[in-house]
């Protein structure tokens, strides 16, 4: 089963390497890894998608926690969360397929971000499953190049139940 793990990490020399190294050194699966700044100075957020049985994922979390530079490690799979990914997809078009491509792009609520007389580039964002679906549909047209960011995710705010009579 896939797990999305969110890590707050010191923005320090070598901190990222230590996390990445852990995955290769311990033989853990690594599907995607993203890193970026947060609202806190000197703290980065890493989002990692890994997979394995419960025992392995427990080890992944413990080993991540064990690193001196990790401040917080959360397995988001246990929580309500929002996951997003961005893909840039470049496709060669022929006469007649351009309209169809634009339609598909619209259906996935994507944007055309570049076009020339041979190819078109679209930007699609959404949960990883949506990106997969878009890629799947676009595949027959001949994807020239593709870049995906990997998953970023955040825990969602808690839902407060509002009783009927309070409304």
């Amino acid at each position, binding site marked *: 089963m896939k797990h999305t793990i969110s890590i707050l990490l*010191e923005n320090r020399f070598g901190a990222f390497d230590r996390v990445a190294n852990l995955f290769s050194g311990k033989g853990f699966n690594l599907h995607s890894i993203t890193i970026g700044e947060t609202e806190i100075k000197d703290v980065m957020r890493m989002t990692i998608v890994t997979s394995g049985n419960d025992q392995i994922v427990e080890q992944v979390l413990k080993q991540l926690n064990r690193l001196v530079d990790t401040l917080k490690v959360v397995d988001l799979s246990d929580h309500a969360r929002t996951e997003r990914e961005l893909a840039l997809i470049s496709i060669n078009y022929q006469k007649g397929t351009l309209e169809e491509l634009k339609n598909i792009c619209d259906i996935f609520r994507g944007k055309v971000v570049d076009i020339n007389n041979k190819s078109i580039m679209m930007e699609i964002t959404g949960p990883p499953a949506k990106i997969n679906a878009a890629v799947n549909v676009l595949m027959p047209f001949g994807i020239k190049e593709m870049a995906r960011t990997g998953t970023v995710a955040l825990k969602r705010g808690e839902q407060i139940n509002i009783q009927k009579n309070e409304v």
Partner: protein
Amino acid sequence: MSSSKKFINGAEIFFECLRRENVEYIFGYPGGSTLKIYERLYDIDFLKHILVRHEQGATHMAEGYARASGKVGVVLVTSGPGATNTVTGIANAYMDSSPLVVFTGQVPTNLIGNDAFQEADIVGITRPITKHSFLVRDVKDLAPSIRKAFYIAQSGRPGPVLVDLPKNVINALCSFEYSEKIEIRGYKPTYSGHINQIKKAAKVISQAKRPLLYVGGGIIMSGASQELRSFAIENNLPVTMTLQGLGAFPGTSELSLGMLGMHGMYWANQAINHCDVLVALGARFDDRVTGKVETFAKDAFKIHVDIDPSCIDKNVKVDIPIVGDVRLILSELRKVMPGKPDIDKWWEEIKTWQKECPLTYDMNDGRLRTEYVIERLSEKTRGEAIIVSDVGQHQMWVAQHYKFNHPRSHISSGGLGTMGFSVPASIGAAFAVKDRPIFSVSGDGGFQMNLQELITANYYKLPIKFIVINNSFLGMVRQWQELFFDEKYSFTNLGESNPDFVKVAEAFGLKAYSTDRPQDVDDLIDTMLDYNDGPIFVEFKVVKEDMVFPMVPSGASISEMIVKRLNPQRMV
């Protein structure tokens, strides 16, 4: 210390830090990138620099020192090859959780990544084998990095920390400030165990019918031996030890079952198979202990005390995990024990196993055997010596036959199994301990891997007793070849090419002796014990076909123990 506005250079800051960390010894070797530090060292008298002959020796010495003393071992080497030579020693310390701080020189920051002369990315190379590391890129960060390095190395589960020091940082000027308080927001080891977990454990232990304490190196590191002894005696509990746990509990005690695992005692492994409550204290369920994990103490209720949360449930799923310092936890556990378990029948069973298959060896042919040497050593030193063993058959025989009375007395390369560990590690131990005899026991293979350090022992006139158990073979590999590889003794016969060890030792200035007769053993041990003006060397030429038994084949369940030679025709 309040911040003085006086500016000093990085090298001076370096030594000011070491002074505040109460460092007594540095094991090191100078080079181009550390010249400034060595210049400063020339005038330093509050610590002693031990000049080694190879940087691997320095790391093993620092580990021997750390394990004998409980303090942090400090290493100082230059960049490039100086740094890469420390890698095996760092890996060894990482596997055995020994506190080291390794300072490596580095090329100036503006040349890092340039393939500069004697440049190596040592922080990158050692990342998987260090607890943490620092590349100090600004002299302002020097003192805080060193402070953190010492703190991280010795707190929580100890381990090696590397501090990489670029040449320009060492030369740069800065005011010196050393904060007593330390705050690393991502690193907060847990020390006191969860009281409810401890109470639950106490209840389970007190109701056990067949309890067993399985103790490891964590007991020694946390200084929990006294607590362990009291806990075991108060509750009449059998104690079995891992290789690294030897000495944690007195080997001569009635309650001690000796070592368990691959070459452990038959009765200790039987006890593992039959216990109903297994209490793991500062031990990590290593594969050399468990054999096939699925069958290890499979019917037992398992309690696991460890300071490293990642050790819990890593190899074996446990029922009550307790994260924290084993000394504090044992002390709590003693307070909340509701009563002692009624286990006379269990002890009878254990005694039966002890009679059924005692630890014996054959001496009828009058030829010298390692077991005999170690047994005599144990008797003659009454278990009071420090034995620094190397890796292989002799290591297992030391573990089986030497009855250690005290913690920090058995020093050996457990996790990594580093041949060549003993000679330098014994030197480090000799700097830490002056009032007990120190024996380095190596095989003829491992002895040749770091024998250059004999000159270090001789130069500092350390009264180490170097023993080489010479069976003319890489004995443990030979044993596996005989048992599992059709007796194809591929490249394990050293007999044809071994040097004359007595001459080698003499060339390094040591008094040296050799024998192959059992009747000489006692006299030679006496000779070693009586000589304290410097190191002394004895070679024991032993039977080459001897094998270590009992043995659990790798990956087998520990009930499938081989207690005797499979092929009696090969008996010598």
